[in-house]
Protein backbone atom coordinates (compact mmCIF):
# COMPACT_ATOMS: atom_id res chain seq x y z
CA UNK A 1 0.00 0.00 0.00
CA UNK A 2 1.27 3.45 -0.85
CA UNK A 3 1.92 5.84 1.94
CA UNK A 4 0.66 9.36 1.37
CA UNK A 5 1.55 10.87 4.71
CA UNK A 6 3.77 13.54 3.16
CA UNK A 7 1.19 14.70 0.64
CA UNK A 8 -2.01 16.68 0.34
CA UNK A 9 -4.81 15.29 -1.88
CA UNK A 10 -4.91 16.42 -5.53
CA UNK A 11 -6.27 19.92 -5.92
CA UNK A 12 -5.92 20.78 -2.23
CA UNK A 13 -2.93 22.63 -0.86
CA UNK A 14 -1.49 24.29 2.19
CA UNK A 15 -1.87 28.00 2.48
CA UNK A 16 1.41 29.66 3.43
CA UNK A 17 1.61 32.76 5.66
CA UNK A 18 1.74 35.33 2.82
CA UNK A 19 -1.32 33.93 1.03
CA UNK A 20 -3.12 33.31 4.28
CA UNK A 21 -2.65 36.94 5.30
CA UNK A 22 -3.88 38.09 1.89
CA UNK A 23 -6.89 35.82 2.16
CA UNK A 24 -7.85 37.11 5.61
CA UNK A 25 -7.46 40.69 4.44
CA UNK A 26 -9.69 40.12 1.40
CA UNK A 27 -12.26 38.29 3.52
CA UNK A 28 -12.33 41.15 5.99
CA UNK A 29 -12.81 43.75 3.27
CA UNK A 30 -15.62 41.77 1.67
CA UNK A 31 -17.38 41.05 4.97
CA UNK A 32 -17.29 44.75 5.81
CA UNK A 33 -18.58 45.68 2.34
CA UNK A 34 -21.44 43.14 2.37
CA UNK A 35 -22.40 44.10 5.90
CA UNK A 36 -22.45 47.80 5.04
CA UNK A 37 -25.06 47.07 2.33
CA UNK A 38 -27.29 45.17 4.71
CA UNK A 39 -26.32 41.62 3.74
CA UNK A 40 -26.34 39.35 6.78
CA UNK A 41 -23.67 36.70 6.90
CA UNK A 42 -24.64 33.06 7.30
CA UNK A 43 -22.66 29.86 7.69
CA UNK A 44 -24.04 26.63 6.32
CA UNK A 45 -22.64 23.17 7.12
CA UNK A 46 -19.50 22.09 5.29
CA UNK A 47 -21.23 18.78 4.69
CA UNK A 48 -24.80 18.62 3.36
CA UNK A 49 -27.04 15.79 2.27
CA UNK A 50 -26.28 14.89 -1.33
CA UNK A 51 -29.93 15.58 -2.21
CA UNK A 52 -29.53 19.29 -1.43
CA UNK A 53 -27.20 19.72 -4.40
CA UNK A 54 -28.58 16.93 -6.57
CA UNK A 55 -32.32 17.63 -6.37
CA UNK A 56 -32.52 20.51 -8.82
CA UNK A 57 -29.99 19.13 -11.34
CA UNK A 58 -27.88 22.20 -10.55
CA UNK A 59 -24.74 20.19 -10.04
CA UNK A 60 -23.68 17.03 -11.81
CA UNK A 61 -22.93 14.23 -9.39
CA UNK A 62 -19.42 13.75 -10.80
CA UNK A 63 -18.41 17.11 -9.38
CA UNK A 64 -19.47 16.48 -5.78
CA UNK A 65 -17.20 15.13 -3.06
CA UNK A 66 -19.31 12.38 -1.53
CA UNK A 67 -19.30 10.26 1.60
CA UNK A 68 -21.91 8.46 3.66
CA UNK A 69 -23.13 8.84 7.22
CA UNK A 70 -23.69 5.97 9.68
CA UNK A 71 -27.16 5.28 8.27
CA UNK A 72 -25.76 4.93 4.74
CA UNK A 73 -27.19 8.20 3.49
CA UNK A 74 -25.11 10.06 0.92
CA UNK A 75 -23.49 13.31 2.01
CA UNK A 76 -21.65 15.91 -0.05
CA UNK A 77 -19.08 18.58 0.73
CA UNK A 78 -20.24 22.18 0.22
CA UNK A 79 -20.19 22.76 -3.53
CA UNK A 80 -21.32 26.38 -3.62
CA UNK A 81 -22.90 29.01 -1.40
CA UNK A 82 -26.12 29.57 -3.30
CA UNK A 83 -27.87 26.21 -3.04
CA UNK A 84 -27.41 25.90 0.76
CA UNK A 85 -28.53 29.54 1.16
CA UNK A 86 -31.65 28.74 -0.87
CA UNK A 87 -32.33 25.70 1.32
CA UNK A 88 -31.93 27.87 4.40
CA UNK A 89 -34.21 30.63 3.07
CA UNK A 90 -36.89 28.10 2.16
CA UNK A 91 -36.82 26.29 5.49
CA UNK A 92 -35.36 27.86 8.62
CA UNK A 93 -35.88 31.42 7.40
CA UNK A 94 -39.18 30.84 5.59
CA UNK A 95 -41.09 33.34 7.74
CA UNK A 96 -38.42 36.01 7.48
CA UNK A 97 -39.74 39.13 5.73
CA UNK A 98 -38.45 39.78 2.22
CA UNK A 99 -36.34 41.14 0.66
CA UNK A 100 -33.87 38.93 2.44
CA UNK A 101 -30.20 39.77 2.00
CA UNK A 102 -27.71 37.02 2.87
CA UNK A 103 -23.95 36.71 2.44
CA UNK A 104 -21.31 34.05 2.97
CA UNK A 105 -17.52 33.64 2.95
CA UNK A 106 -16.61 29.96 2.82
CA UNK A 107 -14.45 27.29 1.29
CA UNK A 108 -16.06 25.29 -1.52
CA UNK A 109 -15.22 21.79 -2.73
CA UNK A 110 -15.53 20.71 -6.32
CA UNK A 111 -14.34 17.45 -7.75
CA UNK A 112 -12.87 18.42 -11.08
CA UNK A 113 -9.74 18.01 -13.06
CA UNK A 114 -6.90 19.36 -11.00
CA UNK A 115 -3.54 20.76 -11.96
CA UNK A 116 -2.65 24.00 -13.66
CA UNK A 117 -3.78 26.13 -10.77
CA UNK A 118 -7.45 25.32 -10.50
CA UNK A 119 -8.02 24.05 -7.02
CA UNK A 120 -10.63 21.61 -5.78
CA UNK A 121 -10.87 23.46 -2.50
CA UNK A 122 -11.18 27.20 -2.89
CA UNK A 123 -12.56 30.20 -1.03
CA UNK A 124 -15.57 32.12 -2.28
CA UNK A 125 -17.53 35.06 -0.98
CA UNK A 126 -20.97 35.94 -2.22
CA UNK A 127 -24.41 37.38 -1.63
CA UNK A 128 -27.99 36.34 -2.30
CA UNK A 129 -30.80 38.88 -2.65
CA UNK A 130 -34.10 37.05 -2.22
CA UNK A 131 -37.65 38.17 -2.82
CA UNK A 132 -37.24 40.90 -5.43
CA UNK A 133 -37.57 40.26 -9.13
CA UNK A 134 -36.66 43.44 -10.95
CA UNK A 135 -33.79 45.14 -12.71
CA UNK A 136 -32.90 47.22 -9.66
CA UNK A 137 -32.19 44.05 -7.68
CA UNK A 138 -30.19 42.66 -10.62
CA UNK A 139 -28.18 45.87 -10.78
CA UNK A 140 -27.66 46.01 -7.00
CA UNK A 141 -25.99 42.61 -7.10
CA UNK A 142 -23.85 43.46 -10.14
CA UNK A 143 -22.83 46.76 -8.51
CA UNK A 144 -21.88 44.96 -5.32
CA UNK A 145 -19.73 42.53 -7.28
CA UNK A 146 -17.94 45.43 -8.96
CA UNK A 147 -17.47 47.14 -5.60
CA UNK A 148 -16.02 43.87 -4.25
CA UNK A 149 -13.37 43.64 -6.96
CA UNK A 150 -12.50 47.33 -6.59
CA UNK A 151 -12.31 46.98 -2.81
CA UNK A 152 -9.85 44.10 -3.19
CA UNK A 153 -7.80 46.24 -5.57
CA UNK A 154 -8.61 44.59 -8.89
CA UNK A 155 -9.35 47.72 -10.86
CA UNK A 156 -8.76 46.18 -14.30
CA UNK A 157 -12.23 44.77 -14.42
CA UNK A 158 -14.70 43.76 -17.12
CA UNK A 159 -18.19 42.56 -16.34
CA UNK A 160 -20.05 40.73 -19.11
CA UNK A 161 -23.83 40.68 -18.77
CA UNK A 162 -26.11 38.27 -20.59
CA UNK A 163 -29.79 37.30 -20.47
CA UNK A 164 -30.87 33.68 -20.47
CA UNK A 165 -34.52 34.62 -20.98
CA UNK A 166 -33.68 36.49 -24.17
CA UNK A 167 -32.35 33.28 -25.68
CA UNK A 168 -35.24 31.19 -24.39
CA UNK A 169 -37.64 33.80 -25.78
CA UNK A 170 -36.05 33.46 -29.20
CA UNK A 171 -36.28 29.68 -29.08
CA UNK A 172 -39.97 29.98 -28.14
CA UNK A 173 -40.55 32.44 -30.97
CA UNK A 174 -38.90 30.11 -33.46
CA UNK A 175 -40.61 26.99 -32.14
CA UNK A 176 -37.40 25.26 -31.06
CA UNK A 177 -37.52 23.20 -27.86
CA UNK A 178 -36.04 20.29 -25.93
CA UNK A 179 -32.69 18.79 -26.82
CA UNK A 180 -32.38 20.90 -29.94
CA UNK A 181 -32.67 24.16 -27.96
CA UNK A 182 -30.24 22.74 -25.43
CA UNK A 183 -27.67 21.95 -28.10
CA UNK A 184 -28.05 25.40 -29.67
CA UNK A 185 -27.52 27.05 -26.28
CA UNK A 186 -24.26 25.13 -25.86
CA UNK A 187 -23.02 26.12 -29.31
CA UNK A 188 -23.92 29.77 -28.72
CA UNK A 189 -22.22 29.75 -25.32
CA UNK A 190 -19.06 28.24 -26.84
CA UNK A 191 -19.28 30.78 -29.66
CA UNK A 192 -18.96 27.79 -31.97
CA UNK A 193 -19.96 29.55 -35.17
CA UNK A 194 -18.90 26.53 -37.21
CA UNK A 195 -21.42 24.10 -35.75
CA UNK A 196 -24.02 26.82 -35.22
CA UNK A 197 -24.09 27.53 -38.93
CA UNK A 198 -24.58 23.84 -39.72
CA UNK A 199 -27.34 23.71 -37.14
CA UNK A 200 -29.01 26.82 -38.54
CA UNK A 201 -29.19 25.19 -41.97
CA UNK A 202 -31.30 22.40 -40.51
CA UNK A 203 -33.66 24.73 -38.65
CA UNK A 204 -36.05 26.11 -41.23
CA UNK A 205 -35.62 29.72 -40.11
CA UNK A 206 -36.30 32.67 -42.38
CA UNK A 207 -33.24 34.57 -43.57
CA UNK A 208 -33.51 37.37 -41.00
CA UNK A 209 -33.91 35.02 -37.99
CA UNK A 210 -31.05 32.86 -39.23
CA UNK A 211 -28.88 35.97 -39.34
CA UNK A 212 -29.96 36.89 -35.80
CA UNK A 213 -29.07 33.44 -34.47
CA UNK A 214 -25.63 33.48 -36.08
CA UNK A 215 -24.75 36.93 -34.76
CA UNK A 216 -25.76 36.31 -31.13
CA UNK A 217 -22.46 34.70 -30.06
CA UNK A 218 -20.48 37.82 -30.92
CA UNK A 219 -22.97 40.54 -30.00
CA UNK A 220 -21.19 42.74 -27.47
CA UNK A 221 -21.97 46.32 -26.47
CA UNK A 222 -24.36 48.32 -24.32
CA UNK A 223 -27.50 50.29 -25.20
CA UNK A 224 -26.92 50.13 -28.97
CA UNK A 225 -26.97 46.32 -28.84
CA UNK A 226 -30.38 46.39 -27.19
CA UNK A 227 -31.74 48.87 -29.75
CA UNK A 228 -30.40 46.73 -32.57
CA UNK A 229 -31.94 43.52 -31.26
CA UNK A 230 -35.27 45.17 -30.38
CA UNK A 231 -36.01 45.53 -34.10
CA UNK A 232 -35.07 41.93 -34.80
CA UNK A 233 -37.22 40.11 -32.26
CA UNK A 234 -41.00 39.98 -32.00
CA UNK A 235 -41.91 37.86 -28.98
CA UNK A 236 -42.90 39.38 -25.64
CA UNK A 237 -40.48 37.20 -23.69
CA UNK A 238 -37.39 38.21 -25.64
CA UNK A 239 -38.45 41.87 -25.58
CA UNK A 240 -39.08 41.75 -21.82
CA UNK A 241 -35.55 40.37 -21.43
CA UNK A 242 -34.16 43.26 -23.47
CA UNK A 243 -36.14 45.76 -21.37
CA UNK A 244 -34.66 44.17 -18.25
CA UNK A 245 -31.14 44.60 -19.65
CA UNK A 246 -31.79 48.24 -20.51
CA UNK A 247 -33.04 48.90 -16.96
CA UNK A 248 -30.03 47.09 -15.50
CA UNK A 249 -27.64 49.21 -17.57
CA UNK A 250 -29.43 52.44 -16.64
CA UNK A 251 -29.29 51.57 -12.96
CA UNK A 252 -25.60 50.68 -13.20
CA UNK A 253 -25.05 54.02 -14.91
CA UNK A 254 -26.52 55.67 -11.80
CA UNK A 255 -24.03 53.70 -9.72
CA UNK A 256 -21.26 55.12 -11.94
CA UNK A 257 -20.27 51.61 -13.02
CA UNK A 258 -21.26 51.62 -16.69
CA UNK A 259 -17.59 51.74 -17.73
CA UNK A 260 -16.99 48.29 -16.27
CA UNK A 261 -19.84 46.49 -18.02
CA UNK A 262 -20.75 45.33 -21.49
CA UNK A 263 -23.42 42.99 -22.77
CA UNK A 264 -22.57 39.56 -24.15
CA UNK A 265 -25.78 38.21 -25.66
CA UNK A 266 -24.16 34.85 -26.37
CA UNK A 267 -23.26 34.11 -22.74
CA UNK A 268 -25.73 31.45 -21.62
CA UNK A 269 -24.32 28.98 -19.11
CA UNK A 270 -26.51 26.56 -17.19
CA UNK A 271 -30.12 26.90 -18.27
CA UNK A 272 -31.18 24.61 -15.42
CA UNK A 273 -29.99 27.14 -12.90
CA UNK A 274 -30.31 30.65 -14.26
CA UNK A 275 -33.57 32.26 -15.33
CA UNK A 276 -32.83 35.87 -16.31
CA UNK A 277 -29.87 38.20 -16.22
CA UNK A 278 -26.49 36.50 -15.78
CA UNK A 279 -23.01 37.96 -15.46
CA UNK A 280 -19.33 37.18 -15.18
CA UNK A 281 -16.39 39.29 -14.12
CA UNK A 282 -12.93 39.16 -15.64
CA UNK A 283 -9.54 40.62 -14.87
CA UNK A 284 -6.07 40.37 -16.42
CA UNK A 285 -3.67 37.49 -15.84
CA UNK A 286 -6.10 34.80 -14.75
CA UNK A 287 -7.73 32.61 -17.38
CA UNK A 288 -10.98 32.13 -15.48
CA UNK A 289 -13.73 34.56 -14.47
CA UNK A 290 -13.28 35.84 -10.92
CA UNK A 291 -16.96 36.79 -10.53
CA UNK A 292 -20.01 34.79 -11.47
CA UNK A 293 -23.66 35.54 -10.81
CA UNK A 294 -27.17 35.99 -12.05
CA UNK A 295 -30.85 35.50 -11.44
CA UNK A 296 -32.00 32.00 -10.48
CA UNK A 297 -35.68 32.19 -9.55
CA UNK A 298 -36.12 28.44 -10.02
CA UNK A 299 -33.60 27.36 -7.38
CA UNK A 300 -35.82 28.45 -4.49
CA UNK A 301 -38.88 26.64 -5.80
CA UNK A 302 -36.96 23.36 -5.78
CA UNK A 303 -36.89 23.82 -2.00
CA UNK A 304 -40.61 24.50 -1.86
CA UNK A 305 -40.69 28.27 -1.65
CA UNK A 306 -41.39 30.38 -4.72
CA UNK A 307 -39.08 33.29 -4.24
CA UNK A 308 -37.21 35.41 -6.73
CA UNK A 309 -33.46 35.27 -6.21
CA UNK A 310 -30.35 36.93 -7.57
CA UNK A 311 -26.77 36.70 -6.37
CA UNK A 312 -23.10 36.49 -7.17
CA UNK A 313 -19.92 34.90 -5.91
CA UNK A 314 -16.34 36.09 -6.16
CA UNK A 315 -13.43 33.64 -6.08
CA UNK A 316 -11.05 34.71 -3.34
CA UNK A 317 -8.40 32.16 -4.29
CA UNK A 318 -8.52 33.36 -7.90
CA UNK A 319 -8.34 37.00 -6.77
CA UNK A 320 -5.18 36.28 -4.76
CA UNK A 321 -3.64 34.69 -7.87
CA UNK A 322 -4.67 37.69 -9.98
CA UNK A 323 -3.19 40.15 -7.47
CA UNK A 324 0.10 38.23 -7.49
CA UNK A 325 0.35 38.16 -11.25
CA UNK A 326 -0.62 41.80 -11.60
CA UNK A 327 2.11 42.73 -9.12
CA UNK A 328 -0.35 43.99 -6.54
CA UNK A 329 -0.02 41.25 -3.94
CA UNK A 330 -0.76 42.25 -0.39
CA UNK A 331 2.37 42.13 1.73
CA UNK A 332 2.02 40.65 5.18
CA UNK A 333 3.01 43.29 7.72
CA UNK A 334 6.32 42.20 9.24
CA UNK A 335 6.89 41.71 12.95
CA UNK A 336 7.88 45.03 14.53
CA UNK A 337 10.09 43.95 17.41
CA UNK A 338 11.65 41.02 19.19
CA UNK A 339 12.29 41.08 22.93
CA UNK A 340 14.87 38.94 24.66
CA UNK A 341 16.15 38.83 28.21
CA UNK A 342 19.10 37.59 30.20
CA UNK A 343 19.14 34.86 32.80
CA UNK A 344 19.00 37.07 35.90
CA UNK A 345 16.02 37.06 38.26
CA UNK A 346 13.38 39.63 37.29
CA UNK A 347 14.44 40.04 33.64
CA UNK A 348 11.79 37.68 32.26
CA UNK A 349 9.01 39.48 34.09
CA UNK A 350 10.21 42.82 32.72
CA UNK A 351 10.36 41.39 29.20
CA UNK A 352 6.79 40.04 29.44
CA UNK A 353 5.66 43.43 30.68
CA UNK A 354 7.45 45.21 27.84
CA UNK A 355 5.86 42.90 25.22
CA UNK A 356 2.41 43.59 26.71
CA UNK A 357 2.89 47.35 26.56
CA UNK A 358 4.05 47.29 22.94
CA UNK A 359 1.32 44.87 21.79
CA UNK A 360 -1.26 47.20 23.31
CA UNK A 361 0.13 49.87 21.01
CA UNK A 362 -0.75 47.57 18.07
CA UNK A 363 2.85 46.52 17.49
CA UNK A 364 3.62 42.95 16.48
CA UNK A 365 6.07 41.69 19.09
CA UNK A 366 7.84 38.35 19.48
CA UNK A 367 8.96 37.45 22.96
CA UNK A 368 12.04 35.25 22.66
CA UNK A 369 11.62 31.91 24.38
CA UNK A 370 14.76 30.26 23.05
CA UNK A 371 17.12 31.94 25.53
CA UNK A 372 19.09 33.81 22.85
CA UNK A 373 21.77 36.23 24.03
CA UNK A 374 21.86 39.78 22.74
CA UNK A 375 24.03 38.98 19.71
CA UNK A 376 22.04 35.92 18.64
CA UNK A 377 18.83 37.88 19.02
CA UNK A 378 20.19 40.60 16.71
CA UNK A 379 21.02 38.01 14.06
CA UNK A 380 17.60 36.41 14.40
CA UNK A 381 15.92 39.79 13.94
CA UNK A 382 18.03 40.55 10.87
CA UNK A 383 17.25 37.27 9.12
CA UNK A 384 13.53 37.69 9.80
CA UNK A 385 13.34 41.38 8.83
CA UNK A 386 12.33 42.43 12.31
CA UNK A 387 13.02 46.14 12.72
CA UNK A 388 13.66 46.46 16.42
CA UNK A 389 15.59 44.40 18.97
CA UNK A 390 15.05 44.89 22.68
CA UNK A 391 17.18 43.02 25.17
CA UNK A 392 16.28 43.25 28.86
CA UNK A 393 19.15 43.01 31.36
CA UNK A 394 18.69 42.76 35.10
CA UNK A 395 21.07 45.63 35.82
CA UNK A 396 19.41 47.86 33.26
CA UNK A 397 16.33 49.01 35.10
CA UNK A 398 15.43 51.89 32.81
CA UNK A 399 15.57 49.90 29.58
CA UNK A 400 11.86 49.29 29.26
CA UNK A 401 10.94 52.90 29.85
CA UNK A 402 13.42 54.21 27.30
CA UNK A 403 12.46 51.74 24.60
CA UNK A 404 8.75 52.27 24.94
CA UNK A 405 9.06 56.03 25.17
CA UNK A 406 10.92 56.06 21.88
CA UNK A 407 7.97 54.52 20.14
Amino acid at each position, binding site marked *: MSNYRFHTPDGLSDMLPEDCAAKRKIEKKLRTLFDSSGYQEIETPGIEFFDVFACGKFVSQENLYKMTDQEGRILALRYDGTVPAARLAATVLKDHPVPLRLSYVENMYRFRESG*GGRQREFAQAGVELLGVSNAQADAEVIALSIASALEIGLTDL*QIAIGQVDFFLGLMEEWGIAGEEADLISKLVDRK*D*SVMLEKMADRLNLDERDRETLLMIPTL*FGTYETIDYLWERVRGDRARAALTNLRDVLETLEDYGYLKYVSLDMGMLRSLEYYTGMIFKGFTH*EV*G*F*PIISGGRYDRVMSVFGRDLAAVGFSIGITLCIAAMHRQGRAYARKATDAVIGYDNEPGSRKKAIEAARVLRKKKMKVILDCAGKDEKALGEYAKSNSIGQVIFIKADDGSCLEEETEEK
Partner: protein
Amino acid sequence: MITIALSKGRLADRTLELLEAAGYDCSMAKEDSRKLILEDAAAGLRFIMAKPADVPTYVEYGAADIGVVGKDTLMEENRQLYEVIDLGFGACRMCVCGPEKLKGNFNRIPNKRVASKYPNITRTYFEKTKRESVEIIKLNGSVELAPLIGLAEVIVDIVESGRTLRENGLDVLEVIADISARLVVNRVSMKMKAKEIMPMLDAIRAQLGKDKE
Protein backbone atom coordinates in the same frame (compact mmCIF):
# COMPACT_ATOMS: atom_id res chain seq x y z
CA MET B 1 0.63 41.22 -26.77
CA ILE B 2 -1.35 38.20 -27.97
CA THR B 3 -0.01 34.74 -27.13
CA ILE B 4 -0.83 32.01 -29.63
CA ALA B 5 -0.34 28.32 -28.85
CA LEU B 6 0.54 26.14 -31.83
CA SER B 7 1.50 22.53 -32.20
CA LYS B 8 4.70 22.06 -34.17
CA GLY B 9 4.32 20.60 -37.64
CA ARG B 10 1.90 20.98 -40.50
CA LEU B 11 -0.77 22.73 -38.42
CA ALA B 12 1.68 25.40 -37.24
CA ASP B 13 3.03 25.98 -40.77
CA ARG B 14 -0.44 26.41 -42.24
CA THR B 15 -1.47 28.73 -39.41
CA LEU B 16 1.59 30.95 -39.86
CA GLU B 17 0.95 31.13 -43.62
CA LEU B 18 -2.63 32.14 -42.94
CA LEU B 19 -1.65 34.81 -40.41
CA GLU B 20 0.98 36.25 -42.78
CA ALA B 21 -1.59 36.40 -45.57
CA ALA B 22 -3.98 38.14 -43.15
CA GLY B 23 -1.38 40.83 -42.59
CA TYR B 24 0.44 39.70 -39.45
CA ASP B 25 4.22 39.57 -39.50
CA CYS B 26 5.20 36.10 -38.30
CA SER B 27 8.76 36.02 -39.58
CA MET B 28 10.12 35.40 -36.09
CA ALA B 29 8.21 32.14 -35.89
CA LYS B 30 9.39 30.86 -39.24
CA GLU B 31 13.08 30.47 -38.54
CA ASP B 32 13.97 26.90 -37.89
CA SER B 33 14.87 26.75 -34.24
CA ARG B 34 14.32 24.72 -31.13
CA LYS B 35 13.00 27.67 -29.19
CA LEU B 36 9.66 27.01 -27.53
CA ILE B 37 8.69 30.67 -27.27
CA LEU B 38 8.99 32.91 -30.30
CA GLU B 39 8.24 36.52 -29.65
CA ASP B 40 8.11 39.76 -31.60
CA ALA B 41 7.33 42.58 -29.21
CA ALA B 42 6.99 45.10 -32.04
CA ALA B 43 4.38 43.00 -33.83
CA GLY B 44 2.64 42.28 -30.51
CA LEU B 45 2.73 38.55 -31.12
CA ARG B 46 4.15 35.63 -29.19
CA PHE B 47 3.97 32.02 -30.30
CA ILE B 48 4.39 29.08 -27.98
CA MET B 49 5.07 25.63 -29.38
CA ALA B 50 3.25 22.88 -27.51
CA LYS B 51 2.14 19.29 -27.94
CA PRO B 52 -1.21 19.20 -29.75
CA ALA B 53 -3.06 17.72 -26.77
CA ASP B 54 -1.74 20.51 -24.55
CA VAL B 55 -2.90 23.41 -26.72
CA PRO B 56 -6.48 23.42 -25.31
CA THR B 57 -5.01 23.34 -21.78
CA TYR B 58 -2.75 26.36 -22.40
CA VAL B 59 -5.70 28.28 -23.79
CA GLU B 60 -8.21 27.26 -21.13
CA TYR B 61 -5.92 28.41 -18.33
CA GLY B 62 -5.12 31.64 -20.16
CA ALA B 63 -1.41 30.85 -20.56
CA ALA B 64 -2.18 31.46 -24.23
CA ASP B 65 -4.94 33.73 -25.53
CA ILE B 66 -5.47 31.86 -28.78
CA GLY B 67 -4.72 28.33 -29.91
CA VAL B 68 -4.87 26.38 -33.14
CA VAL B 69 -5.66 22.73 -32.74
CA GLY B 70 -7.50 19.87 -34.41
CA LYS B 71 -11.17 19.31 -33.60
CA ASP B 72 -10.22 15.77 -32.52
CA THR B 73 -8.05 17.14 -29.71
CA LEU B 74 -10.77 19.61 -28.71
CA MET B 75 -13.36 16.85 -28.52
CA GLU B 76 -11.03 14.64 -26.50
CA GLU B 77 -9.97 17.36 -24.06
CA ASN B 78 -13.42 18.98 -23.75
CA ARG B 79 -12.22 22.30 -22.35
CA GLN B 80 -14.07 25.50 -21.56
CA LEU B 81 -13.08 27.54 -24.60
CA TYR B 82 -14.51 29.69 -27.34
CA GLU B 83 -14.25 27.73 -30.55
CA VAL B 84 -14.60 30.51 -33.06
CA ILE B 85 -13.21 29.66 -36.51
CA ASP B 86 -12.98 26.53 -38.64
CA LEU B 87 -9.64 27.00 -40.41
CA GLY B 88 -10.50 24.24 -42.88
CA PHE B 89 -7.09 22.61 -43.11
CA GLY B 90 -6.13 19.29 -41.56
CA ALA B 91 -9.49 17.89 -42.66
CA CYS B 92 -10.33 14.29 -41.77
CA ARG B 93 -13.05 12.31 -39.97
CA MET B 94 -13.37 10.70 -36.55
CA CYS B 95 -14.73 7.21 -37.21
CA VAL B 96 -15.57 3.87 -35.71
CA CYS B 97 -13.61 1.37 -37.78
CA GLY B 98 -13.43 -2.40 -37.82
CA PRO B 99 -13.04 -5.46 -40.03
CA GLU B 100 -15.00 -5.18 -43.30
CA LYS B 101 -17.13 -8.15 -42.36
CA LEU B 102 -18.62 -6.17 -39.48
CA LYS B 103 -20.15 -3.67 -41.89
CA GLY B 104 -23.89 -3.64 -41.34
CA ASN B 105 -23.96 -5.99 -38.35
CA PHE B 106 -21.60 -4.13 -36.05
CA ASN B 107 -24.41 -3.12 -33.72
CA ARG B 108 -25.23 -6.75 -32.99
CA ILE B 109 -22.02 -7.42 -31.06
CA PRO B 110 -22.76 -7.23 -27.32
CA ASN B 111 -20.21 -5.83 -24.84
CA LYS B 112 -17.92 -4.39 -27.45
CA ARG B 113 -14.29 -3.74 -26.76
CA VAL B 114 -13.18 -0.49 -28.40
CA ALA B 115 -9.54 0.50 -28.75
CA SER B 116 -8.66 4.15 -29.23
CA LYS B 117 -6.20 6.98 -28.70
CA TYR B 118 -9.31 9.00 -27.84
CA PRO B 119 -10.95 7.39 -24.79
CA ASN B 120 -13.12 10.42 -23.99
CA ILE B 121 -14.52 10.79 -27.50
CA THR B 122 -15.16 7.05 -27.55
CA ARG B 123 -16.94 7.11 -24.19
CA THR B 124 -19.07 10.13 -25.08
CA TYR B 125 -20.04 8.67 -28.44
CA PHE B 126 -21.05 5.26 -27.16
CA GLU B 127 -22.68 6.50 -23.94
CA LYS B 128 -24.46 9.62 -25.17
CA THR B 129 -25.14 9.02 -28.85
CA LYS B 130 -25.51 5.24 -28.98
CA ARG B 131 -26.57 4.77 -25.35
CA GLU B 132 -24.42 1.71 -25.00
CA SER B 133 -21.81 0.61 -22.45
CA VAL B 134 -18.53 -0.51 -23.96
CA GLU B 135 -15.12 -1.52 -22.70
CA ILE B 136 -12.58 1.10 -23.76
CA ILE B 137 -8.95 0.15 -24.27
CA LYS B 138 -6.62 3.13 -24.43
CA LEU B 139 -3.77 2.80 -26.92
CA ASN B 140 -1.13 5.32 -27.94
CA GLY B 141 -0.63 4.57 -31.62
CA SER B 142 -1.04 2.00 -34.44
CA VAL B 143 -4.55 1.49 -33.18
CA GLU B 144 -5.37 -0.51 -36.33
CA LEU B 145 -3.49 -3.42 -34.77
CA ALA B 146 -6.10 -3.96 -32.07
CA PRO B 147 -8.88 -5.59 -34.14
CA LEU B 148 -6.34 -7.53 -36.19
CA ILE B 149 -4.93 -9.40 -33.21
CA GLY B 150 -8.14 -9.66 -31.21
CA LEU B 151 -7.46 -7.03 -28.58
CA ALA B 152 -10.68 -5.23 -29.54
CA GLU B 153 -13.59 -5.67 -31.94
CA VAL B 154 -13.48 -2.11 -33.25
CA ILE B 155 -11.43 1.09 -32.98
CA VAL B 156 -12.20 4.80 -32.85
CA ASP B 157 -9.65 6.84 -34.77
CA ILE B 158 -9.19 9.63 -37.27
CA VAL B 159 -9.38 8.65 -40.93
CA GLU B 160 -7.85 10.78 -43.64
CA SER B 161 -7.64 8.81 -46.90
CA GLY B 162 -8.51 5.44 -45.42
CA ARG B 163 -5.46 3.80 -46.99
CA THR B 164 -4.00 2.41 -43.75
CA LEU B 165 -7.39 0.94 -42.94
CA ARG B 166 -7.86 -0.72 -46.32
CA GLU B 167 -4.36 -2.16 -46.37
CA ASN B 168 -5.15 -3.84 -43.05
CA GLY B 169 -8.52 -5.16 -44.06
CA LEU B 170 -10.45 -2.58 -42.03
CA ASP B 171 -13.19 -0.19 -43.03
CA VAL B 172 -15.18 2.75 -41.70
CA LEU B 173 -18.28 1.52 -39.85
CA GLU B 174 -19.66 4.80 -38.54
CA VAL B 175 -18.64 8.45 -38.78
CA ILE B 176 -18.59 10.28 -35.44
CA ALA B 177 -17.59 13.76 -36.59
CA ASP B 178 -15.85 15.83 -39.23
CA ILE B 179 -12.48 17.06 -38.06
CA SER B 180 -10.40 20.07 -39.08
CA ALA B 181 -8.18 22.68 -37.48
CA ARG B 182 -10.03 25.11 -35.22
CA LEU B 183 -9.06 28.45 -33.77
CA VAL B 184 -9.91 28.64 -30.08
CA VAL B 185 -9.87 31.64 -27.75
CA ASN B 186 -9.60 31.89 -23.98
CA ARG B 187 -12.84 33.14 -22.40
CA VAL B 188 -11.17 35.89 -20.40
CA SER B 189 -8.88 37.06 -23.23
CA MET B 190 -11.92 37.47 -25.47
CA LYS B 191 -13.08 40.19 -23.04
CA MET B 192 -9.88 41.66 -21.65
CA LYS B 193 -8.02 41.75 -24.99
CA ALA B 194 -11.01 42.28 -27.28
CA LYS B 195 -9.31 45.26 -28.97
CA GLU B 196 -6.47 43.07 -30.23
CA ILE B 197 -8.26 39.77 -30.70
CA MET B 198 -11.45 40.80 -32.51
CA PRO B 199 -9.62 42.49 -35.43
CA MET B 200 -7.37 39.44 -35.73
CA LEU B 201 -10.37 37.12 -35.94
CA ASP B 202 -11.97 39.36 -38.56
CA ALA B 203 -8.76 39.44 -40.60
CA ILE B 204 -8.46 35.65 -40.49
CA ARG B 205 -12.10 35.18 -41.48
CA ALA B 206 -11.66 37.60 -44.37
CA GLN B 207 -8.52 35.79 -45.53
CA LEU B 208 -10.26 32.40 -45.35
CA GLY B 209 -13.09 33.88 -47.44
CA LYS B 210 -10.56 35.04 -50.06
CA ASP B 211 -8.85 31.64 -50.09
CA LYS B 212 -12.15 29.96 -50.84
CA GLU B 213 -12.83 32.09 -53.91
